[in-house]
């Protein structure tokens, strides 16, 4: 009785209602740009996929912790399959160091397990809050690229599940083409349910560290040749200063300490960047000041010390949500690799363009990539110089600059990194990654990303702002 009167009322109300405000997106990439709404479905068990997509016609994308910067981990109006609940260990062999684990486990969780047992990641990026699956899908690299290659080089095998339910064991010898397509395959070839990772032994949490100030790219290259025996090397670079301080930086070297030390797990980080900084917080003056303080922090031109691995590898992980420093609008990253042939001239030209642009940005990262080939057909690293820099998003300024820097990278024979990108054009992408059409044949028909849609879009639509 009351039902019959209530029913049409409900219908009228729904029809008359304005579009509900979708609110902030449930899932953001680390750069917080672009912002897209998507449905998020958690995958907690290896058997959850493809069942989680049953009855859905939306495109989907497996994602982990959302630490890639642009839209490689986003899918506008699609379904994100968040794998972080799939974080179980499966096996560990202390004889070989081979760890088998579900793909949603984070590198932080792996370290919590491995360090007390005297093992460490074979390759680690600048944050430990990425998943094993994400590390494979972006074929990430670390400060030891010259001696260790990229992450995929240390993944003997993994399982790939497609949306049609087929499962493939992938290694260099079994399904080698699927193995090569999935390493660096941006999550598009299927879901990685579990993977093996070859850990390396350590005897201490300590890192034997050396920091050396340099001025200019020539000095950087000299240091690189002089200290080529160090396992880890990376340089922080001041991208704001011009004149005599142009391209000044600190060359940082590290080796795992050889003196046995404590192997306890890391404490939880306690600092959280509490709010979105206002747009004016990052400007030329504040960034210059920061860079000057950072450059002189070590006091002398050359220091040696033993550091814990946390501040050496993950200085920014100590402050959770540090990306809020860039405000609500977010940040974009520009990261290139240019082969040795043009590495020096390309780097100097690009650094000059950045310094002259006046677009304030914090310390940048400069390092050499070695010549160990990556195993993925879409992997980013190539032997030469790698450079990475964050930019705040300023309407009308940031994207034209990125466009220009992308074209310069292309002219010098280099390429940009999809995991850090929000701006490459289809033409740039398709030149950077000549195998993209072959790779496209391995893409799962149900899976795509906003990045993939953007860079394979033949209309060449450019990002707004």
């Amino acid at each position, binding site marked *: 009785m009351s039902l019959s009167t209530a029913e049409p009322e409900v219908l009228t109300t729904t029809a008359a209602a304005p579009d509900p405000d979708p609110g902030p997106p449930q899932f953001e990439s680390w750069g917080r740009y672009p912002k897209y709404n998507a449905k998020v479905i958690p995958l*907690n068990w290896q058997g959850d996929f493809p069942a989680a997509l049953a009855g859905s016609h939306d495109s989907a994308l497996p994602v982990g912790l959302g630490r890639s910067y642009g839209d490689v981990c986003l899918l506008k109006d699609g379904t994100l399959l968040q794998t972080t609940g799939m974080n179980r260990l*499966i096996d560990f062999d202390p*004889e070989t160091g081979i760890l088998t684990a579900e793909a949603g486990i984070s590198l932080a969780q792996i370290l919590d397990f491995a360090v*007390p*047992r005297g093992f460490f990641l074979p390759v680690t990026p600048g944050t430990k809050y990425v998943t094993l699956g994400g590390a494979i899908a972006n074929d990430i690299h670390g400060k030891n690229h010259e001696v260790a290659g990229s992450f995929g080089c240390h993944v003997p095998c993994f399982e790939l599940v497609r949306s049609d339910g087929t499962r493939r064991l992938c290694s260099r010898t079994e399904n080698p083409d699927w193995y090569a397509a999935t390493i660096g395959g941006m999550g598009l070839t299927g879901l990685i349910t579990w993977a093996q990772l070859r850990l390396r032994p350590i005897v201490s949490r300590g890192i034997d560290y050396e920091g050396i100030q340099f001025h200019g790219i020539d000095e950087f290259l000299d240091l690189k040749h002089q200290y080529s025996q160090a396992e880890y090397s990376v340089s922080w670079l001041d991208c704001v200063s011009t004149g005599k301080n142009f391209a000044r930086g600190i060359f940082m070297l590290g080796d795992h300490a050889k003196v046995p030390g404590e192997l306890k797990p890391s404490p939880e980080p306690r600092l959280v960047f509490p709010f979105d900084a206002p747009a004016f917080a990052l400007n030329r003056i504040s960034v210059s000041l920061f860079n000057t303080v950072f450059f002189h922090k070590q006091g002398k031109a050359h220091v040696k010390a033993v550091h814990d691995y946390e501040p050496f590898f993950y200085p920014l992980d100590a402050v959770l949500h540090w990306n809020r420093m860039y405000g609500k609008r977010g940040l974009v990253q520009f990261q290139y690799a240019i082969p040795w042939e043009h590495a020096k001239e390309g780097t100097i030209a690009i650094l000059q363009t950045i310094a002259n642009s006046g677009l304030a940005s914090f310390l940048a990262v400069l390092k050499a990539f070695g010549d160990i080939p990556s195993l993925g057909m879409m992997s980013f690293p190539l032997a030469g110089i790698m450079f990475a820099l964050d930019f705040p998003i300023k309407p009308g300024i940031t994207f034209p600059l990125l466009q220009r820097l992308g074209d310069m990278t292309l002219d010098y024979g280099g390429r940009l990194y999809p995991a850090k990108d929000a701006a490459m054009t289809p033409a740039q992408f398709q030149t950077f990654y000549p195998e993209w059409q072959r790779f496209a044949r391995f893409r799962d028909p149900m899976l795509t990303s906003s990045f993939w849609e953007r860079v394979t879009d033949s209309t060449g639509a450019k990002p707004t702002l």
Partner: protein
Amino acid sequence: MSTLATPPLDASPASNPTAPDRSKLTKKILVLGATSGIAEATCRIWAAQGAQLFLIARNADKLAAVAADLKTRGAAYVGTAVADLDDTDKHAELLSHAINSLTGMDIAYLAHGILGDQPRAEQDFEHAAQILHTNFVAPVSLLTWLANFCVQRHAGVLAVLSSVAGERGRKSNYLYGSSKAGLTAFLAGLRNRVDREGVTVLTIKPGPVNTAMTAHMKIRKADVNKVAATIVKAIDAKKDNLYVPGIFQPIMFVIRNIPDRIFKKLNL
């Protein structure tokens, strides 16, 4: 006995300092509903301590995944049995097999349960009865057997996941809530009976915790690993009751004491 048990993990102490071998004294823990989010997080802490675990759950694939994880993390022993705990007729056989495999039992951890579908339960008594059976009747059967086992030995901890939802019925989940209220009352009575026999009964009342069971709820949820660490400490301290996170103790005090003439008008 050993033919029934899963073979113990061969963990050499040299390569795995956190996993002592089985001959040393480590906790023997029986876990019911071992694939639930809170149970799994709790077991990871026990595994890292080198505990001996026997896991019971309904889904064989999920149970195998959890067991492999706990073995790898350093549990000195992991035995498993696939069982539907709704089947109370099988409880005695199942529990004696589990305790034989563990060669004893220091802690029983009951973590199985269903949230159910409140709107459906309001229309469909079968579903309402299902919620009560899984969350109340089946635990009563298990705890009766386990309490008698512990009383005979004058030792043991029975740690049971109830819920803050059992503190007062609310329209949004009173079937789940009343099943947990019954469980809480049962545990209070059981504690009153067996405490003098040297047996500890811990009633755990979690607020919303971030697990698969609550994935659809858009509310503030506690981190499951922090909840698990609190539970492990409360068991070690032989507490009687645990609200987790602790803020729910004063919150539930207020909710319990709102007069019905006001409470009945609220949308909770």
